[in-house]
């Protein structure tokens, strides 16, 4: 059985907006979510740059027992999922009566682990860690909490694929629905945004140090880029079989038509053109689309000198004859890591729904690789029927997704 897979709900909580409407406005305006955190400098960070997010207050919204196990990124994921379920018109009665699944990307929960260790060193008694610590600390924290909160009864686990986690979660949900194993899957990605989670990444000198003007620090593809800016939040994409969506009378926002993946089989942090090309080609083959049929590419490009160059060469290899518009929304959001693959589907969906291409802000001059791309450096009002979204991660994990406006 091969099902068509559609998107029926979206939700987001990010540094550029706390819901879809705010995020859509920020994307269109080219608004940055980046700031400077002095505490990081005092803690020994090379860079104090970070995405800035409003901490949600869930007391009063969510029962205490359901809150105590939620770490920071779990709170973001709860809010994003609540928004996505609401606009997919899925309520608690439906969740109780159907085997809705969850596959969410998450690849760390550093803060609860560190806080628990600090408590243990001070108190020398594990019982004083409280009941929430274990549920906050595990990598599967988002799926274990959301499946409990939303009473989910289908597939339930976390995808950890570094900075491609969110994208792979959507790809895996797509496979399950396509092959008839699930009818609805809550997919997404969440990323904690605290300094404890990012110290070891800062150690690699991977972060931009353009601290004097934070909103211009993230400059993917620009000749003078000097590193990424760590960021976070959560984004949720509700995937559903076309038949289920029609039967429910659900809003069908678009169709997920292609998923491609690959592993570079080489360096732990350096990408490879061949691996990226393979991932994009596989997605296009799966979608049955040619390069000319893709209207927009949401690049993974994080603003690191090395990574962006590899992606630019890979995109050029496949799209040089059609010069498809490309932008990296990380120029505004920073690098949302485990969340990015899902949030960038949400960002691209907002562009598809509202007929614009969000700008790759802070781009001033190309290097030899990015000069070959058709970069959208300003907001472009343009109809988008099909987009491709790339996500790549440490260890050489690659994921590409293709989404198309629905054809009846």
């Amino acid at each position: 059985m091969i099902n068509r897979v559609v998107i029926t709900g979206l939700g987001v909580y990010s540094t550029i907006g706390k819901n879809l409407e705010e995020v859509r406005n920020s994307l269109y305006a080219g608004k940055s979510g980046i700031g400077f955190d002095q505490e990081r400098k005092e803690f020994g960070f090379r860079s104090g740059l970070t995405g800035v997010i409003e901490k949600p207050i869930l007391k009063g919204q969510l029962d205490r027992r359901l809150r105590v196990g939620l770490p920071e990124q779990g709170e973001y994921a709860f809010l994003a999922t609540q928004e996505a379920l609401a606009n997919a018109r899925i309520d608690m009665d439906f969740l109780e009566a159907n085997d809705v699944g969850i596959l969410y990307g998450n690849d760390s929960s550093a803060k609860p682990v560190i806080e628990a260790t600090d408590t243990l060193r001070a108190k020398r008694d594990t019982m004083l860690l409280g009941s929430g610590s274990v549920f906050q600390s595990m990598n599967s924290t988002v799926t274990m909490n959301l499946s409990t909160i939303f009473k989910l009864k289908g597939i339930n686990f976390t995808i950890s694929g570094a900075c491609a986690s969110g994208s792979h979660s959507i790809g895996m949900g797509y496979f399950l629905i396509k092959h008839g194993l699930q009818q609805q899957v809550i997919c997404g990605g969440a990323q904690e945004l605290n300094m404890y989670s990012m110290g070891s990444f800062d150690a690699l000198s991977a972060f931009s140090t353009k601290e004097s003007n934070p909103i211009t620090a993230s400059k993917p593809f620009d000749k003078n880029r000097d590193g990424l800016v760590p960021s976070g939040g959560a984004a949720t994409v509700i995937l559903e079989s076309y038949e289920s969506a029609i039967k429910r009378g659900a809003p069908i926002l678009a169709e997920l038509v292609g998923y491609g993946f690959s592993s570079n089989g080489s360096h732990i942090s350096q990408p490879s053109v061949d691996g990226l090309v393979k991932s994009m080609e596989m997605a296009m083959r799966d979608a049955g689309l040619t390069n000319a049929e893709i209207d927009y590419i949401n690049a993974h490009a994080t603003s690191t000198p090395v990574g962006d160059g590899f992606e630019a060469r890979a995109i050029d290899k496949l799209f040089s004859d059609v010069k498809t518009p490309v932008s990296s929304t990380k120029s505004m959001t920073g690098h949302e890591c485990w969340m990015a693959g899902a949030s960038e589907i949400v960002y691209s969906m907002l562009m598809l729904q509202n007929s614009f291409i969000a700008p790759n802000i802070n781009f001033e001059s190309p290097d030899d690789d990015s000069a070959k791309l058709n970069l959208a450096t300003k907001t472009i009002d343009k109809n988008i029927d099909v987009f491709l979204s790339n996500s790549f991660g440490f260890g050489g994990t690659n994921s590409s997704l293709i989404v198309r406006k629905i054809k009846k």
Partner: protein
Amino acid sequence: MTEAELIEKVNDLLVEEFEVDRAAISPDAVLKDTLGLDSLDYVDLVVVIESNFGFKVKPEDFMGIVTFQDFYSYALKRVTEKV
């Protein structure tokens, strides 16, 4: 700390931690039912007491604590012992 002060402090902490209506708390009320405690919540109760009163409730001590009055008496005894 007088008994009245201790009772007020315990009630404040329980209302804050377990988000219950203060009016539901009375000396004769059953602690578990009123606070809606499950097995995990007892772990948090231990943390709340330790961090505010400086003594640790042993899990086996909960066996003898049914009502709020039982809990006040137990806490007063432990606080007094500590002094």
